[in-house]
């Protein structure tokens, strides 16, 4: 888009023999091209952004309704689960008492405290599965695209 306009400039600027007008043209052409380019981006991004915004809003409304329902259900179920896990003591299962988590976190805190920093549990990640009985397949998975 800027090619022809700048070619005249270019031919003059390559040597040392450019005039004040040439330089002014560089500034004006340069800023114009940058602005035209980014204004185009503003337009395009705005257009598809608007489309998506509408779509997202619909989706979001739907999701929130579902979430609220799920939450209500969960709250009803939670006390029962907690009671059960307290009776049976700590076992390796999904409904484990949150106090155990507190113990672990406390222990970690106890150690870290020596560095004078108060850590917070940021996230707990599931460990990546390693070498299960069909390990080769899992391993080979990485080779898929080649």
């Amino acid at each position, binding site marked *: *888009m800027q090619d022809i*306009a700048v070619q005249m400039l270019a031919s003059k600027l390559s040597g040392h023999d450019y005039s004040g007008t040439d330089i002014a043209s560089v500034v004006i052409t340069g800023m114009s091209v940058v602005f035209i380019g980014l204004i185009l981006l503003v337009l395009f991004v705005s257009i598809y952004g608007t489309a998506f915004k509408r779509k997202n809003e619909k989706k979001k409304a739907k999701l929130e309704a579902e979430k609220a329902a799920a939450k209500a259900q969960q709250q009803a179920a939670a006390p029962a689960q907690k009671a059960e896990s307290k009776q049976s003591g700590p076992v390796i299962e999904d409904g484990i008492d949150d106090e155990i988590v507190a113990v672990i976190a406390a222990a970690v805190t106890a150690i870290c405290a020596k560095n004078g920093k108060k850590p917070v549990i940021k996230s707990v990640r599931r460990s990546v599965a390693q070498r299960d009985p069909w390990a080769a*397949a899992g391993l*080979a998975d*990485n080779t*898929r*695209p080649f």
Partner: protein
Amino acid sequence: MLDQFLSTIADLAKASGVAGFFVDGGWKNIVMILISFLFMYLAIAKGFEPLLLLPISFGMLLTNLPGADMYHSEFWVYQTVGDNDHYIDYGNILQHGGLLDILYMGVKLQIYPPLIFLGIGAMTDFGPLIANPKSFLLGAAAQGGIFFTFLGAAVLGMSAAECGSIAIIGGADGPTSIYVSSKLLSNSDSIGVGTIALAAYTYMALVPIIQPPIMRALTTKKERSIVMGQLRPVSKTEKLIFPILVTVVIALMIPSAAPLVGMLMMGNLLKESGVCDRIAKTAQNELMNIITIFLGVTVGATTTAKTIMTLSFAKVIILGVIAFSIGTACGILLGKLMCVLTHGKVNPLIGSAGVSAVPMAARVSQKVGQEEVPTNYLLMHAMGPNVAGVIGSAVAAGVLLSIVAH
């Protein structure tokens, strides 16, 4: 004043890359850009081998934007000097090449594919193949797709270089396809490396759709129901000897296959040695990832409109799927023969895994087998032919390169 402003704007518009779309044949670039979007969609939304198809399709986009000049297909013509020496003018490429020209040197110098094989070797377990070496035969049979497609391409009137490049798609092995086609094809051919790579990776992603009907058609219910026992464990020493043995045997027999097979086996030896973990891990991760990016985007860049928008492209598409199908069939048929010879101990379904496309083809064997007997675990048995197929394709690549001197 307004007049002058408007004329300047008009001038600008005339000279822009957009204008490149309206010159003779410029509409082809638009088609190519749309095709690149299609492949991006397939890679991202449909999970078609995204690690390579996404960089390839982005390279395709970049190379077809008029004026971007990041890749110049005209630089990659073989020059002829004297009687029979021909060469690429690398000096010119260094002087005037764009970013993707410079990076493409790694493809044309035949560096990237062997290095990716180094990484693949470092992550491959040849245990199932060592435990059942007869799997090698299934890996050999499935290369039938390569050679019959060569025949088909020749019948369609393509040049020897084009025949070889299209045929290797049947090997179902990306780096091998790129290795062979980048050696054989030059600017004067009607197809490019990128076309071959696109077809290869697309069909590899389509393995779960292409293979099952063929597998079912060629086998009986009884054959598919054969349950295979557990494989014997393989000792560390056997795993150490294997890569060395394969290198020696293959490099002596088919010297042109040495770079691919040698690097594959070196990677495997580094891994199995257990004393080179730090370099084996880099080979299979960072080194391979870096080269994957460079390989993908530059191979994509070779798909200029001029190269793709030809009748040859249609031929590649058709011959490619034929190559895959014949390969699958050949594997299955030899599987049936082995089934007969072993009095029903071999499930023929593992034969289709011989096309490579690791580990997707092995999984397809597993899945089709489970349709009959849900408790039948063919996966490990199919991994043998599957990795044998990688070696087999590399051998077939060596043979093609020997035959089709450019």
